[in-house]
């Protein structure tokens, strides 16, 4: 297959999409939001437990969608768990830069290394929305999703 496709559908991504981490609903979420991409019908719900100081003490997601949207959601919850509000915000901004092929050097080294597998998406502009759906939903949950 061509290199761009190989970059896009790396084993790590396929693994996350087939075996999503922290998948399922959360009864005692402090925040939650639903994301929907009307173009493709992809849906994702993000559940959060935020501490008083905004730290992500727990996070889960559930949803249906393409390999990219599911893998992105799975990696997101995996990486956001335990982060402070400031760390989570920096992670999100860095991720959004990365998938658009923009400068993501603000990201701490180890975060960038983990997220780099999503970088292949920047060669597929029509699919960037798939990768960002979960992150936008997370942001909505934090800002407007208090339960």
């Amino acid at each position, binding site marked *: 297959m*061509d290199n761009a496709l190989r970059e896009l*559908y790396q084993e790590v991504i396929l693994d996350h999409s087939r075996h999503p981490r922290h998948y399922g609903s959360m009864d005692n979420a402090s925040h939650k939001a639903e994301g929907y991409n009307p173009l*493709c*019908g992809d849906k994702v719900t993000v559940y959060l437990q935020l501490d008083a100081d905004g730290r992500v003490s727990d996070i889960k997601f559930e949803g249906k969608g393409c390999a*990219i949207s599911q893998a992105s959601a799975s990696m997101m919850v995996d990486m956001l768990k335990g982060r402070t509000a400031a760390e989570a915000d920096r992670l999100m901004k860095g991720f959004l830069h990365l998938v658009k092929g923009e400068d993501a050097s603000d990201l701490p080294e180890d975060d960038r290394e983990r997220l780099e597998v999503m970088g292949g998406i920047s060669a597929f502009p029509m*699919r960037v929305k798939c990768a960002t759906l979960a992150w936008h939903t997370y942001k909505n949950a934090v800002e407007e999703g208090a339960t």
Partner: protein
Amino acid sequence: MMAQGKIAASFDAEKARADFTILSRQVYGKPLVYLDSGASAQKPDMVLDTMRDFATSEYANVHRGVHFLSAAATDRYEAARRTVQKFLGAASEEEIVFTKGGTEAINLVAYSHLMPVIQPGDEIVLSVMEHHSNIVPWHFLRERQGAVLRWVDVRDDGSLDIEALDAAIGPKTKLVAITHMSNVLGTIAPLKDIVARAHAKGALVLADGCQGAVHEKVDVQALDIDFYVITGHKLYGPTGIGALYAKKAHLKTMRPFNGGGEMIREVSKERITYADPPARFEAGTPPIIESVGLAAALDYLTGLDRVAVAAHEQDLLAYARQQVRQFNWLRVIGDAPGKGAILSFEADGMHAHDLATILDREGVAVRAGHHCAQVLMERFGVASTSRASFALYNNRSDVDALVAGLSKARGILG
């Protein structure tokens, strides 16, 4: 299926293919395999040449000036109307209203024909396989005026249950709104039968012919249908133009929709009087160059042996259907007898968008998503499907490329 030799004798797909310059291009270094004509068809060079020739020699606004070019452009615009009239078998050119597409034509019927007369509790019958353009305008009437939408299901194979449709038509039914051919399933609705049953109960019928008119010869008089809608860009013509056929008696009573120039007889400070149809429904400067392009596209299409073209498309569908049988992980959605040349499917463990991305890198363009038919997606319990739609310029090599791409996608994602 018609024998190969017989098709070749009356329709030469390879020759037709050469009429479409875009089909010779490559994408990602691979030959383009265009299987998305159901979304929008490519245009033969003669359509584009005709539009350019017109724009460079006869163009001006229509129905306005007394000058030479305005007269020439008006002649072409009205000639285009007659071309559409002949294409649909309408009795009179005055029954053809130019619109900007199929969506506007359906909205025109909703706003101009039904909105002034519909009462709370009045019913509109429609099928679950409608495109959103033949759903949302009727929802407007439900939301705003209390109309009731009565939905007719399709069978598991995608065929329309005509008895269920008949049963849904009652004394309060004002309109049956039905697609001539489903853009997802390919199912062809038996319009003549539907019209007879609806008329027997005093209901009118609108057919969305955006897909159907491309593949089937239409005769609105033989169908005795009240409203029939087409769009140019699926008929190998330009975007920005479509048409509504409506029986003259209906057009006469329909309330104007858009107000502006062209659609009036007299305007004063106190009152207005309207122009006769079809001008009454064509406010503002119409898509003039596009009308000439649409006429060229219809000339192109009717210049072919349409029975042979249909047989060619059916051959491609049957071949594709047979080829994908080897994939036990693929489920075809829509297998109605006599269906048109559209193949929708879902694949185990593969989302339609991932599949479409991989096919795309092979040069194969398919549609992935809900196809503006979310009611139908719900009926079949899927969020989206992949769809290959076949046009007159496709060939068996295109099907082979699709099948090879599917195997590859399975290798990557499966």
